[in-house]
């Protein structure tokens, strides 16, 4: 900052006050980060607690709650189901998201902004409303409830896959596609052999991020889960309505580690900010 135009007394004053302001700001930012991260970190600590209570600081170190997690079939089944559902929803949302993002970037022209906003529709509607409405639709149209859950998850993942893939497509030179087509490649072949290889990191990121969104979802599954198709967040939610032991901490610690590792991969590949649109 150029301070040359300041009068002498106020420059002295400004120097002192700017140091104070910098320390004050530093303290404030640290406090905000502590607030953001404390609930997540506390879970990791609690998961190693040897006693039955959700206390902190822990009274020792034990892996007993991880053992309990692995022995409780309700939790392990739900974990497996969430992985499976996340994988299917991720593939669905990435494929449909790729087709839509490509069409938005290459064919919409000046109406592109509008198309992108429409694609982001599911973010703006409360997820509980999407979920109830899907349940209602299932009571009218004969459609397996598992299908409803998968479709619901694909819908809530789509805004993120479209945002991520659109950002990747912006880095692809359209001339390359035109060259392929001039040389006689069909549109499909151009997509498959030119576009997809060029945005492979973006597609992989979209796939991973959609999995993360699906795995963390609780609102879609709230109305659409049932016997044999209970997701992990729903299993934890119903468990916590009656009791609360560190076994939940152990499960969520496993989940946190998995999600953060996947998030880091996305960050390396294309950057999370592109998918979150910031």
């Amino acid at each position, binding site marked *: *900052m*150029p301070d040359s135009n300041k009068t002498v007394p106020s420059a002295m004053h*400004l120097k002192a006050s700017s140091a104070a302001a910098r320390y004050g*700001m530093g303290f404030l*930012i640290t406090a*905000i980060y502590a607030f*953001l*991260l*404390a*609930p*997540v970190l*506390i*879970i990791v600590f609690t998961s190693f607690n040897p006693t039955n*209570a*959700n206390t*902190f*600081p822990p009274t020792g170190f034990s892996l007993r709650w991880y053992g309990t997690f692995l022995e409780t079939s309700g939790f392990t089944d739900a974990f497996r189901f969430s992985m499976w559902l996340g994988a299917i929803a991720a593939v669905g949302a990435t*494929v*449909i998201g790729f*087709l839509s993002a490509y*069409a938005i970037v*290459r*064919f919409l022209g000046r109406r592109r902004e509008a198309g992108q906003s*429409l*694609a982001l529709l599911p973010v*703006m509607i*409360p997820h509980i*409303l*999407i979920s*109830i*409405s*899907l349940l*209602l*639709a299932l009571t*009218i149209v004969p459609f397996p409830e598992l299908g409803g859950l998968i*479709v*619901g998850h694909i*819908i809530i993942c*789509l805004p993120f896959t479209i945002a991520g893939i659109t950002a990747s497509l912006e880095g692809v030179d359209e001339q390359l596609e*035109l060259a392929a087509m001039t040389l006689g490649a069909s549109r499909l072949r151009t997509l498959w052999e030119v576009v997809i290889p060029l945005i492979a990191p973006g597609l992989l990121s979209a796939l991973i991020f959609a999995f*993360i969104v699906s795995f*963390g979802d*609780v*609102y879609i599954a709230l109305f659409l889960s049932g016997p044999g198709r209970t997701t992990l*967040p729903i299993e934890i*939610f119903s468990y*916590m*309505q009656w009791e609360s032991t560190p076994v*939940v901490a152990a499960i969520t610690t496993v*989940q*946190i580690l998995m*999600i*953060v590792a996947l*998030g880091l991969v996305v*960050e390396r590949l294309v950057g*999370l*900010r592109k998918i*979150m*649109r*910031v």
Partner: protein
Amino acid sequence: MRAGGGIFAATLFTPITVLYLSFLLAPIGFFLVMSVFRYSPMELYIPAVTADNFVRLLGEEHYRNIIFRTLRIAALTAFFSLLLGYPLAYFLARTGSIWRGVLMFLVIAPLMTGVIVRTYGWIVLLGSEGTVNVTLMWLGLIDRPIKILETEVAVLVALVHILMPYMVFPLFSSLAGQDPDVERAAATLGAGRWRIFFEVTLPLSRAGILMGSALVFTLTAGAVVTPALLGGTKVQMLGQTIYDLVLSTLNWPFASAIAFVLVLCQFSIIFLYFKGGRRRAG
């Protein structure tokens, strides 16, 4: 792109259009229409037009309280998210630190873990043997654990924590997008640090403030899991009420009327947002 692209583009758009129309817009439309149907314990609903659901919702004090509580908590959550999110977004937008990427990741990371994980974290922090109570007793400020869970404060704190990133992102975008020369010009003309902030930076970030507040308000209004686990039966909000009506009482038409009010609140907020945004542009 070139001739013949029309059919190809239409094909590419087909899956998402079918998906959104038949599994998103049509079901939501039908669900909201149900708010004027009559409730029947035997069937899901009787398609006879009635205003009963809305009369009951606005007439009974119990439900009026739930509506006001939801609006109050949503407004407070948006306010505190802004209060905490603004300095964070400002810092992230202006810092030259090499850790900026990491610090940004730390804002997104909690978001990715899901609502349940973070709500559970607050149960551990705020419980009777939780960190907050243990610390307060250790400091000698209280003799025995105070009850934080099952109060509005617990719900508010957790919701601010869970939804704050949604405030930070639009704020960050609008702050990072500002031309640094504008602030420099104000400084050259003799404005102090605070004056620059309140008369230049803050007004220029208005779009981000409106966007973030609208987003947090809407997301809070639709919250179910966090109020249910941290507030119990004492802090009933609209989302939980809908959940109970659909899954326990099976009163779909009444649930629909509540959802209708929820959507109405959301649309008024979005309307205000666009109105505010336009005034800035004009």
